[in-house]
């Protein structure tokens, strides 16, 4: 039952879940889910670029996503449009441009469904390599900027006043977001990456009473979702991304039972 491709997918998926756990907590705390979506949508453009130039997908997606983040920051300064409108603008236009470019690339056969929803069969040894190098690197950097990032998440002015340089931490965090999207796109698919970030973290919030605890539960939730999701995917031949996200949703629903209890206890 445990085929080679399945082992590869499992190793890759677990590597991703360890990183999406802590990053997902910050996505929830800082209300960045639409931002994550925007970066993920722009990843399609990165993928097409990678195919056209015969370049590594993860690197190309990382560059394009970082670029989109920079454009967003620039747009925020130039216009008075609200943040969500700008995010929607960038998300859908980059997705659209990506799809149009794919239309032109008739000489390459694209598995669009695989791009959108993930494909475990596509995970190669190289991908595992990138995930297990890039992932720990993201975690180390996150650990280094944890203090200023977390303090400014609680209160920006407090962090700034007490000399923690929150702007730099925020910029670095944005790059980390582009990084996780780049390494997880093949596995989870670009439409579902934000789900992988948010759902385990949301589940963790329901059962945590401190930030550290939430990060740990979020990682555990992500790992369980990957294992459950991939087993389902193997058994029923479903797409890997949706199966993982559905498993995460199941865990989230279970966590609601716990929160119901604690609300009852309070009343």
């Amino acid at each position: 039952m445990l085929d080679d491709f399945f082992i590869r997918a499992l190793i890759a998926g677990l590597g991703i879940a360890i990183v999406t756990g802590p990053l997902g907590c910050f996505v929830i705390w800082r209300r960045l889910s639409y931002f994550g979506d925007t970066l993920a949508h722009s990843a399609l453009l990165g993928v097409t670029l990678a195919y056209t130039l015969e370049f590594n997908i993860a690197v190309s997606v990382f560059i394009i996503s970082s670029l989109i983040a920079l454009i967003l920051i620039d747009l925020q300064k130039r216009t008075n449009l609200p943040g969500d409108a700008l995010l929607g603008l960038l998300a859908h236009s980059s997705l659209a441009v990506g799809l149009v470019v794919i239309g032109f690339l008739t000489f390459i056969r694209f598995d669009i469904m695989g791009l959108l929803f993930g494909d475990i069969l596509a995970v190669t040894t190289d991908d595992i390599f990138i995930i297990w190098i890039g992932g720990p690197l993201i975690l180390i950097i996150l650990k280094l900027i944890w203090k200023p990032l977390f303090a400014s998440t609680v209160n920006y002015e407090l962090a700034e006043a007490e000399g923690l340089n929150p702007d730099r931490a925020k910029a670095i965090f944005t790059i980390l977001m582009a990084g996780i999207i780049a390494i997880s796109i093949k596995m989870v698919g670009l439409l579902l990456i934000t789900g992988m970030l948010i759902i385990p973290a949301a589940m963790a919030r329901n059962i945590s009473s401190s930030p550290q605890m939430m990060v740990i539960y979020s990682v555990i939730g992500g790992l369980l979702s990957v294992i459950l999701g991939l087993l389902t995917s193997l058994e029923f031949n479903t797409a890997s991304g949706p199966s993982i996200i559905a498993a995460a949703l199941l865990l989230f629903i279970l966590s609601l039972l716990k929160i119901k209890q604690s609300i009852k206890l309070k009343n």
Partner: protein
Amino acid sequence: MNLNQNILVKLKQAGLRINNKWLVKDVSLQIEKGKIVTLIGPNGSGKSTTAKIALGIYKKINGEAKKYTTKVGYVPQKISIDWTLPLRVSDFMVLTENLKEEAINDALSLTGVIHLKDKNLGDLSGGEFQRVLLARAISKKPELLVLDEPVQGVDFTGEIALYELIKKISDELNCGILLISHDLHTVMSATDHVVCLNGHVCCSGSPIEVAKNNEYKALFGEQASQILSRYEHRHDHIHTNEGKIKKN
């Protein structure tokens, strides 16, 4: 150059203008080690803005603002913790600096909230939260303390105790304090230097000097005994748009 080693913060005609509107203008003041400087003034007079300028929170200001220390403790006027962030008092205490357990306990005991250490911040009352904010700010033994209405919502006896504590901290740590307060009695009794703001500096000096000042009287009412009940605004000038001043 900081010629005087005791100076922690120096504002020179500092001001902030956002969307062509002056929030505060032409503020000059300095905070020295071991001294308490208090900002008073009506709502919207630019007290919090001035404090934030002193802290270096704003990047684009007019005039000059220099901070000569990095050991800062700040109690903001308003802080809201989102439900999505599970945060206990003990987590909040180490928000900007890692502290030993002992330092955390000492600070929480000083402000009288040690029993709340493992509670969730969202479950605290307004007064309890204020005490935690103050404990966090003093726990890191800062050189500069900026307290924006630190006792709002604290009960009456607690208020007096906390002001005494602030005075004690200023002496013991020899730190400079920038205090924003509405309690004029406290301001007048425990402060070294008072700055009276109303979009600009109306008057400043020792509490006694300020109490005698006509602009102060105009701002806070004629009789010192009634200062607490009178916040009515009378001026020798009126404020037009953009903080411009027109003499009557």
